[in-house]
């Protein structure tokens, strides 16, 4: 049984993971990262799960890494940090991951949110990379994913000054796709998850992979990957079903085949 998070099945095909370390504003300690990685691992292997939503509390999505734990590590400790493997597991998750962010998403919390494919933010959410204030820097993708999401100037400003931005700013900058009332953030994320869960799983998976390729390959390679992925889907039963249902003006019944 996980101790630092809870897992619910609010809808068919949808898993909701809620970070639960209220005493530490959901600071990402090794145990939490390990339990999260394990849950995503299980979710990936379970064919019944199509989409995962991850959220924290009303006050904090996750307010950073566990500083106490971090302070205890020396250079060798950091080199052997088990957390790296957990982060890698999270970043390799092949199904859609939606983050519903209320309150603080700072440091590792912001980095975790940026691992999600879609970010929905409550109006009072705050995003930031305050590591610089501690004499360190982001270490789980903060300098890379942030720049890709919001562009150079804002990413530099956030990482070098440590100052956070609010949800509206994050929306304008493209870090999040929607801002909602804080009480409805999870609901909205689940609604999007439900929609995606109805789609053909293989198409969703390949489309996600193709979109992520756009971030780290040149255009020609990305287009080549897209074409391959597109061709791969030609052999699936769900493609046939999707096109037939469209022609027959009915809802498709996808099987994941």
């Amino acid at each position, binding site marked *: 049984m996980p101790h630092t998070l809870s897992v619910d099945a609010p809808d068919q095909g949808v898993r909701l993971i809620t970070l639960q370390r209220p005493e530490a504003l959901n600071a990402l300690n090794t145990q939490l990262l390990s339990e999260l990685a394990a849950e995503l691992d299980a979710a990936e292997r379970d064919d019944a799960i199509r989409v995962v939503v991850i959220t924290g509390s009303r006050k904090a999505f996750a307010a950073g890494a566990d500083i106490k734990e971090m302070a205890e590590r020396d250079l060798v400790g950091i080199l052997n940090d088990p957390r790296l493997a957990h982060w890698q597991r999270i970043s390799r998750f092949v199904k859609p991951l939606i983050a519903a962010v209320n309150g603080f998403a700072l440091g590792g919390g912001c980095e975790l949110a940026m691992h999600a494919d879609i970010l929905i933010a409550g109006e009072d959410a705050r995003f930031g990379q305050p590591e610089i204030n501690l004499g360190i820097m982001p270490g789980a993708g903060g300098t890379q994913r942030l720049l890709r999401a919001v562009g150079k100037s804002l990413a530099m400003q956030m990482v070098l000054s440590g100052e956070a931005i609010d949800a509206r700013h994050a929306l304008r900058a493209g870090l999040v796709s929607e801002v*909602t*009332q804080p*009480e*409805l953030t999870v609901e909205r994320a689940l609604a999007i998850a439900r929609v995606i869960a109805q789609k053909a799983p293989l198409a969703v998976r390949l489309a996600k992979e193709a979109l992520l390729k756009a971030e780290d390959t040149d255009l020609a390679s990305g287009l080549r990957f897209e074409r391959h992925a597109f061709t791969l889907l030609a052999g699936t039963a769900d493609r046939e079903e999707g096109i037939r249902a469209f022609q027959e003006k009915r809802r498709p019944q996808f099987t994941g085949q």
Partner: protein
Amino acid sequence: MHFEHILFSIEDGVALLSLNRPEQLNSFNAQMHSEVREALKQLRQNPEVRVLLLTGEGRGFCAGQDLADRNVAPGTEAPDLGESIEKFYNPLIRALRDLPLPVICAVNGVAAGAGANIPLACDLVLAARSASFLQAFCKIGLIPDSGGTWSLPRLIGLARAKALTLLGERLSAEQAERWGLIYRVVDDANLRDEALKLARHLATQPTYGLALIKRSLNASLNNGFDEQLDLERDLQRLAGRSEDYREGVAAFMAKRTPAFKGH
């Protein structure tokens, strides 16, 4: 925490916060700011509180910033007024606007500088007939702060907002009421009682629903029509889940007075 520059009490769901530096017309210094901040924190943490009444002791409501704190002697370096706004006034204004309950302001006397704009961040403003509003900033080379440049054009229109802030003329409570700057003028002797009566009434009402009304109206000043329709949908969804909504409908059907709990 013991308060020196404010009076603060909570009774029957009504939080009463009175600025209490009457000799200085309740002007703000750093300590008064931190006391007000502490009081707002206490009432936010107290689920019993269902309405806030803000007023002042003595003949004035609030004369804004205590300039004794900000004396700029010739030859000295210019102070960073932005810092004091960032640290004190903006958090106060945001806190009043964002409180999830109705905030009544009883303007008992002169309201000048930031003191003229603090009421504009409240929800229902009553003013004593002898009270007045003074956008004094232009007299000393400053601009209206504490949300004044945002609230004034929205409440009274750009033309009047400009006259008020560029000329710095005293605006009587009655004129403020006619212009729609405040809700209602009350005879001086009745102000406190009228404000308390209003507060006690609101303390029996569906607080959560009122908070959502306040939130939607505040948001409307920035939203386009379609965004606002979406917001109404979302907030109504939340309101519809409240206990008070259940109670309100049940009481209506049973033709009895509802007993709202505030959530």
